């Protein structure tokens, strides 16, 4: 009897040992699959982020070792850096105008595409083309041509009797609009996402509404809009973060000018880091950008409870 119990506990411990061994083996297998990402995450993302946090409290030109300056960078940014405030203002204006415009276009066109006409697949492809190439140097070159003094836009405006003989991208009031147009022009990618969302709305809902005598406008506001809000939410978050990081087109089309009217935050950060080699100062700018983007994202998340419809919760 006693022997048996002993055997049982032996067996148990062998089981435990086996399970532990198996688990350890599984962990090892997982690590082998994960290793590229683990290396990247710790070595190229998390480590550098912490290092950049440290740098933001230093003065560092890459020629000599970083020297600790405490909060000096942050104090100077907030109290004595006009370009910081200017670039923040420009960027926020851009985000607040370009993101909703782009999404409004995307949603409107997606709804039109979804009306069941023939050829919508072809048109979807056409609308998508600018999204593929919109960030390229080539388009920046073209954009400068089209919006230039002797460009196509001014000529077309001339046909309608508007005489504009200036470079749009060097006009202090219009330069930012040249870039906003460039972003809105690329409404194709959010449009395709909206379209996929629209196609997932069950047809029965519309049929049931028709039976109940709802007209098109009712159906749109009571069915389409609520059911598309999760997609809208997703698009809003991603487009907003992307707009905050706008760099290439501002760098190439307007070069931040005229008189810094299109000095986007990412552009200012680039100049501080890679033209002036003030790595410490630029790191502080980067962390402020992260906090600004984080706050805006958090606000959108927070507000989403009020306007995003989740079916599983039975409405609001």
């Amino acid at each position: 009897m006693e022997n048996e119990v002993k055997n049982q506990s032996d067996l148990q411990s062998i089981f435990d040992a086996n399970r532990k061994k198996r688990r350890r083996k599984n962990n090892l297998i997982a690590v082998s699959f994960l290793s590229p990402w683990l290396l990247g995450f710790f070595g190229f993302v998390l480590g550098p982020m912490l290092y950049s946090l440290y740098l933001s409290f230093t003065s560092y030109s890459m020629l000599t070792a970083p020297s600790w300056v405490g909060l000096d960078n942050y104090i100077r940014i907030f109290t004595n850096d006009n370009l910081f405030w200017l670039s923040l203002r420009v960027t926020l204006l851009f985000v607040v105008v370009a993101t909703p415009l782009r999404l409004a276009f995307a949603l409107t066109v997606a709804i039109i595409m979804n009306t069941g006409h023939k050829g919508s697949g072809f048109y979807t492809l056409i609308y998508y083309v600018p999204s593929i190439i919109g960030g390229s140097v080539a388009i920046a070159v073209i954009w400068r041509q089209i919006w230039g003094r002797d460009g196509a836009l001014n000529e077309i405006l001339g046909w309608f009797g508007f005489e504009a003989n200036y470079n749009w991208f060097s006009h202090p009031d219009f330069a930012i609009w040249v870039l906003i147009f460039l972003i809105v022009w690329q409404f194709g990618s959010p449009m395709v996402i909206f379209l996929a969302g629209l196609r997932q709305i069950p047809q029965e809902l519309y049929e049931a509404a028709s039976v109940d005598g709802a007209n098109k406008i009712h159906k749109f506001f009571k069915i389409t809009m609520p059911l598309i809000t999760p997609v809208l939410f997703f698009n809003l978050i991603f487009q907003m973060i992307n707009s905050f990081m706008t760099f290439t087109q501002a760098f190439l089309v307007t070069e931040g000018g005229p008189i810094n009217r299109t000095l986007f935050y990412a552009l200012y950060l680039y100049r501080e880091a890679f033209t002036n080699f003030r790595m410490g100062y630029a790191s502080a700018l980067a962390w402020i950008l992260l906090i600004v983007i984080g706050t805006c994202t958090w606000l959108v998340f927070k507000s989403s409870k009020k306007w995003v419809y989740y079916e599983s919760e039975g409405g609001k």
Partner: protein
Amino acid sequence: MDERKTLRQIIIYHTFVGGLGFVMLYPILWMFASSLKPEHEIFLNAASLIPSEFRWENYAIGWEGFGRYGFDLFFRNSLFVTTLAVIGALFCSTVVAFAFARLQFKFQSVLFACLLATVMLPMQVTLIPQYILFHNLGWVNTFLPLIVPTFIGGSPFFIFLMVQFIRGIPRELDEAAIIDGCSWYGVFWYVILPLTKPALVTVMIFQFMWTWDDFLSPLIYLQNANLYTVALGLRGFSDPDNLTAWGPLIAMSSLSLLPQFVLFLFCQKYLVKGIATTGIK
């Protein structure tokens, strides 16, 4: 919606939608047209989409590039970087996603949360420390900073996309393989990998488009004109100091977009499906 469309509705639809399509494509059509225009016509008849005569030599002149650097060099560089970046993205996204989707391991949910967090992380935050790191490794003025990150999860979104895709593959398949004595490596190689083809194509297309277009990383890491990618070469070419004529510049702009157009035409089915299901870009 099976409501019959009246002829009037159809005409209004196609006029509006087609008109908008024309406006959308106008800058691109303009580019191709102007790349063939004689120099003076680019500004004189600026809006026109039909060149009065076709100047194909714009392409030949542009191809010579500037200084000693021709566009053949830039295209070779771009092709090299892009190919390796695509391989990196395919390798990393499948291997890592397999672990997250199929294996059980310690800290799994924490690590997955980290992955999701990096999807949304603005690149500006890591830009400077990564530059310093690559600088200290002696990688500035090599292609390594553009290539190596793709092998170690530089685009976490692709991993996420793959995780979602692999989760959709029935688990019975790997269980059957395991019972037959297959290891997890075997399951990955023989069972899962062949089934991820549609997702692989999506990853390939997007990584290609992004790397080909990428401007900021080459701008920071490649100072030597020998190493310029097409994006940088085009920018160098458009520099007022190098620029002699507009025709060749616009010709080279058109040419720089050609690989993307070709890929788009051949893979548009995957591309549109890819964005629709994953919400890329």
